[in-house]
């Protein structure tokens, strides 16, 4: 008889589109390699060391937390590795090992796990960690000083420092195509513009990041930089410069788009992105900090729950 047959019984729906967190993480990691590999070629073994250490330590921190809190092992979803990678991309290749390891601790443990793990973090964990380490050990992340021992065939001055201290004129010494090709100093995975853009476009097309956020973030940068530039062309660099320097591109494609800390509705995503872009340029141009991307992202992360309330009425509700 058929009584012994054990059928699978479960609730509808019986189909799934096959997406998963791990495939998302895998694809974002893959896309980030487009920027990280050129970075590693530029900065050599030290950069490779920082990247691998960041990823490994992020995974280990998450494992440790899994054990301590007696929760199922969650590193398989690739999210911890991704956080490690994002963090490493922002670091200079010279970052000492202890700063990398504490950084990933801040990212994984403080940035994500204490809020309840994946999906519950109000801030982008990597951005939060980066901000903390920058505030704590600022000297390490002064790119000019940090990368002093490298010799480059291009102007080895952190572009944003130049524009901050000397206005728009020196900024013009950077040719935009050079910036795109990574001929500037900066974070390991944050300078190779073409790679970041290619990775970003890939992720947008495949739907792993929400294109509305990236595009509006860049639009926000462009518009506000243009505004400042028109206001005072001597003092403020043009939009092209702002788009291709500092953490702009990595911010637009990899950081602001982090799932948990960004909105999911259309108009909120646009507001979120535009605000992020505008804040970035404002901080760069009139604030005290050199780059504004990290603070801008933390601020938009903070307002995310509020803006995401703007949405169409549910079926059968309201007028």
């Amino acid at each position, binding site marked *: 008889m058929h009584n012994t047959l054990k059928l699978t019984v*479960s609730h509808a*729906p*019986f*189909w799934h589109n096959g997406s998963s967190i791990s495939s998302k993480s895998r694809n974002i990691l893959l896309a980030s390699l487009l920027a990280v590999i050129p970075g590693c070629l530029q900065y050599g073994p030290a950069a490779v060391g920082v990247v691998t250490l960041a990823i490994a330590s992020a995974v280990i921190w998450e494992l440790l937390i899994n054990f301590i809190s007696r929760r199922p092992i969650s590193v398989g979803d690739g999210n911890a590795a991704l956080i490690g990678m994002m963090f490493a991309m922002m670091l200079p290749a010279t970052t000492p090992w202890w700063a990398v390891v504490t950084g990933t601790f801040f990212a994984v443990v403080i940035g994500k796990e204490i809020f309840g793990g994946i999906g519950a973090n109000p801030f982008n964990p990597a951005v939060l960690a980066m901000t903390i380490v920058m505030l704590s050990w600022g000297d390490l992340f002064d790119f000019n000083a940090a990368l002093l021992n490298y010799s480059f065939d291009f102007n080895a001055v952190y572009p944003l420092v130049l524009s901050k201290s000397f206005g728009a004129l020196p900024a013009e010494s950077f040719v935009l195509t050079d910036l795109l090709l990574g001929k500037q100093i900066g974070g390991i995975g944050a300078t190779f513009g073409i790679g970041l853009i290619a990775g970003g476009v890939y992720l947008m097309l495949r*739907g792993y990041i929400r294109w509305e956020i990236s595009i509006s973030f860049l639009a926000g940068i462009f518009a506000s930089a243009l505004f400042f530039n028109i206001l005072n062309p001597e003092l403020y660099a043009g939009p092209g410069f702002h788009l291709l320097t500092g953490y702009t591109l990595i911010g637009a494609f990899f950081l602001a788009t982090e799932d948990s800390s960004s*909105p*999911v509705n259309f108009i909120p995503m646009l507001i979120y992105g535009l605000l992020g872009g505008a804040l970035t340029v404002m901080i760069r141009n009139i604030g005290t900090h050199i780059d504004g991307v990290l603070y801008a992202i933390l601020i938009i992360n903070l307002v995310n729950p509020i803006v995401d309330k703007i949405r169409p009425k549910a079926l*059968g509700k309201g007028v």
Partner: protein
Amino acid sequence: MIKRSFFGLVKPKLQYEIIDEAQAEPVSIKASKQIMLYIDQSLENTGNALLKTGDPVKAGQKIAMTDSVDYLLSSKSGQISKISTFVGIMGKKFTSVTIDVDSESSQTVDESFKNVCQTPSLENARDFLAGLPGQPDFNGFFDMDKPVKAIVVLGVDDDLLSTTNQYFVKNNIIAIKTGVDLLCKITGISNAILIVPQHLEQVAGSSGAIVKTVDSEYPSAHPELIMQHILASEDGKSKSKSGIAFFSAEAVCAIGAAYNTGKLPLEKIVTFVSKNGNKQLVSVPIGTPIQDILNKFNETLNDGDRVILGGPMKGISAFSAEYPVLPDTDAIIIQDKNQITERSDTACINCGECVRVCPANIQVNQLIRFLEAGQYEEAADQNDLFSCIECGFCSYVCESRIPVFQHIKLAKHTLESMKAAEESNA
């Protein structure tokens, strides 16, 4: 199974099945030995059961435990061999009645409907026809608070893969016309609307009803959405189900045939989808165990396989292949063990896929947090739980593979039974 497309920039689309020539003619299948009927009554409340084991039944006889409006019709004559309780989804209790079927040659037919069929009326429709294939529901016409203003015939299939209702529009539009005319006559309602997929618009024209089309993307053929998008323009903004009586095309055909011939048609058309994805329309007596259909197609079941009654998005999965074809079983789908995607208990990562696909504009990413925490009242008050039309799309796309739809159903069920308990205490 339709997978996520390579490009994910636009929101995912699921297309309804379109009936094609090859599968148009249903294969007829007989009930081998037994039929089984699940009646929406629990055994415990039936002190004076109308039926008991050993009773003979005739084909077309009403099978009910009490004198209520819930009954099924026996598709064959035979003898009741077993009456037991069947526990369905969310712990709902049914009475399961098993009938050992008489041989084909000695089938006897119940004549009570024949005696009234000359004078069609809403009353005898409710008393005799609610067990027809397609499960027509006449109760709405008896609700004096919400008078029915329009009859809507669904010539569309409400879930993926099924072509059952399209079959009737495509091959039996005359029968639909007969049924619609009859329904209009007995209800006194002249406003009949036939909903069909775009590719059947031409054919549908000869039904005499007002024809409206829905597009081919899931879940646009959902009755709730049909009301919102298609009927709202007809009749101002009708926000609730009140005022509209829905019938499936199959039910309408059956009603027409019943009154015209005096015989109750009790063969159900089912879209059968085998493990390898072959689709075939079959015609089976209501109550036939699924196993009989499997035998016909040499389909074998192994441990871990899944038997689905209804479509892949909204159906239910059966505990065994003894589960019968019921009046509302439009499709039967067999899934192999390795076609099944495991669900997980990972938390929501806020990817927003569900929000993009939800036809009811629910913030599923917020809702699921309350549901997982068991905060059902907050979910209903602040997160539009009851706006959900139960299409299952959110679960289909969920990147964390959360059984979102199951959470929603459980929450609704819990709140509704709490409310019912409160009312009975008051």
